[in-house]
């Protein structure tokens, strides 16, 4: 079965919190994964004594495990790909125009 690197949504209503997990593609989103390799908090936060208003998002990631799972063929989802590309584990995906829309059948 296909291995996926994907997000599992936890947290609360209007306060999402994701585990970055390695799981079989056909298992349920929040079922027990093979491994949790990190977390992703998508809600931007300010620093404690910050006055500039700059926001940041917190991610915890085990980069060595992420590289390993990519190496053995785990397929990251779009979001995880984006996150991993920030730390240069994967190349950044160029945004392709039009290709996102499914092609009509011939």
């Amino acid at each position: 079965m296909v291995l996926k690197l994907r997000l599992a949504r936890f947290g609360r209503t209007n306060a999402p919190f994701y585990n970055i997990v390695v799981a079989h593609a056909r298992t349920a989103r929040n079922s027990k994964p093979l491994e949790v390799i990190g977390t992703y908090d998508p809600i931007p936060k300010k620093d404690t004594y910050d006055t500039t208003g700059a926001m940041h998002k917190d991610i915890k990631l085990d980069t060595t495990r992420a590289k390993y799972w990519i190496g053995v063929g785990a397929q990251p989802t779009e979001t995880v790909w984006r996150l991993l590309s920030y730390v240069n584990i994967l190349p950044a995906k160029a945004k392709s125009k039009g290709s996102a829309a499914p092609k009509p059948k011939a």
Partner: protein
Amino acid sequence: MKIRRLFKYHSLKKQPIRPTWNKYNLYNLASARRGHTNRLPFMTFFQQKWLAKSMTRAYHGEHIKERKWQRMFSRRLQAVVNMDPKYMAKYNGSEQAAGRGSGLKEPPAYEMSESGQGAKRVIANPGRKVATPYEQMTFAPLERRLDIAIFRALFASSARQARQMVVHGAVTVNGKKACHHGKSLMKHPGYLLNPGDLFQVDVERVLYATGAPKDKKLIAAAMKAAKKEAEEKAQEAGEEEDAEEGEDAQKSTTSSMKEKKFQEAWTSKYELMELQRLLKHAKRIADSPSHQLTANRKKSLRALKRDIKAAIEQARRRDESVPVTGNVVEDLTMLLDRLALSSSEDPQKSQAVRELKRQLPRSSREMLKKVIEYNDEHDSTEVDPSKPYMTPWRPRNYMSAFAFIPRYLEVNQNICAAVYLRHPVARPGESEVPSPFSPIINQLAFNWYLRRG
């Protein structure tokens, strides 16, 4: 049918002591001197505890549900002992364990001073046996609450008012209104402050909460006069418009006009009346025999005030760091303070001291203070009818009887902010929890919440 009784917060019959600055409360507090303790010997232990619990809970967190307080209650009471480094440098502790384990002799409570003249008290001699009033710490956990800390810092005239300030978003903790992922407001009156937390209340709220209320009679009179005037004006205006416009538009315009006119008239009327009140007040002070200010004296004092202002100006030119507050009394005292402190170091400053002292004979200093204060009140603070409190601001009645700031807070009144330094503690002969009850009552309340026997 049973008739429902009105709940009286400040009941003169039961005389509960409440966390407010109310005059009823002051009376109840004063007459509780004899108190319920007389009744205690005729009660069972349970009755005693029950009475103590109900008395103390009327004051300590009366706006908090009993369950909640029960959960906060802690049987661990914090106390400190002050260790004197001088004593510790002299003794290594073995003197207390010498002999049969309790010292060869009682360590001295008094020591001869170095010069050999007179006994000097040793600050924290472990031999001094002063009891630590642990029982007075029963309600210490409540003092951690944000609303109660605001009340203790004298920013609100009652614990309930402090609570309202928090709920209405007038309070920040560590400079933050927002928390919880930057979403909800910090509007939790039950937030338990951690040591080092800085809380700050909106200045206007504090002025409103602790200031004297507006003069109701004055407001009513101003309202009445303003209404009359506004109606007359609006009528005139309405008649003029009547000729030009149709009937349907007329009604709405008159009403809005009326309102506007009323607002204007009311503001000006109120301002005028406040000024008149001030004038009266000023006259009363000037005429009052206790001040004994003759015209000549006043004149000379005014000249003195001018001189002092000039002196301060001079000092500021020399030293940039002398701040200008605009308040003559403060300026003067600060200047005197500063100059008195460092007169030996800086010849320039000592010169200024002499200058000031020459201008300020000791005999007239008190008189001068009165005049300056009097002038200050009327010069610096103006009447502002838009404020919800009486202007110029003065503290509300009976505030001074309740004015104290416990040691676990450090307050800066100018910015209405305070730091919660640490949790309240007991030390020999002293407890930091502000409680109006005697140790016996607090002890019984503690026993109630221990839930044993």
